[in-house]
């Protein structure tokens, strides 16, 4: 998988390394900005109130 990506990147090894780094940073950004904020409420750390039952499921 990673070998396939590497082979399909343009340029010499340095350019490829640079593009890889940018790709990795972009993926981390998308994860922290969009994916994790969506996934985090599914974990139990948000349940700090006593009226969940009355407020409905969340």
């Amino acid at each position, binding site marked *: *998988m990673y070998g396939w990506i590497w082979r399909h990147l343009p340029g010499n090894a340095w350019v490829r390394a640079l593009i890889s780094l940018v790709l990795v940073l972009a993926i981390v950004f998308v994860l922290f900005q969009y994916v994790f904020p969506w996934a985090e409420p599914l974990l139990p750390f*948000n349940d700090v109130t006593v009226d969940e039952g009355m407020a409905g499921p969340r």
Partner: protein
Amino acid sequence: MTTRVIIRTLSELCVTIGTLIVLLVVYVLYWTSVRADRAMDSEIDHLQDRWATGSVAMEGARGQAAPPPYAPGASFAVMYIPRFGSDWAKPVLQGTGAETLKKGLGHYSRTARLGATGNFAVAGHRRTYGDPFKDFPALRPGDAVVLTDGTTWFTYRIDRRPYRTRPSDTGVIDPVPRASGFRRPGRYLTLTTCDPEWGHSHRLIAWAHLDATRPVTGGRPAALSG
């Protein structure tokens, strides 16, 4: 050859999933707190700016008979608990929605106003989002919980050690909280958070009663300078 490709792809997949999990842990343990600390500091700054310009004092004088209701999702007070550290100060916002609790402590909107007769109930994260109530079990009878709304300092005193209960036990934020030991109507405060620390099977409750009030012009209450 194909076996090699399959095994290689499988290992790459495992490494990828492992990296994802590590990143999620970093996000939950570290990044939510960075974001929340920034949000809470800006809420407190915002409040103090507003109080400094005197708009609250005027509101208080004008609306003595019927103070305006707290705006949902907006901060209206700052809470200090010396037991959690002398620099522990968190904003209190109206409502207990998930988004609200990312920016500070949340006031149960159906409970009493700050300092009023009834039960002023507040929820906060024990872990993640700045860990505001991390040291919740350390609360002891007599501990001060000090709040200010810009015009008055309210000093509440904890009455008993934290009480563990079920999430459905809404009686703990009643005007006269169930199981608190309070018998007659009064000016009470209830704090709620999750228990166990990283779980959600139970809730931890702390009750306090209003011990003293003083105008902001009179200086910080003794509980904070001690």
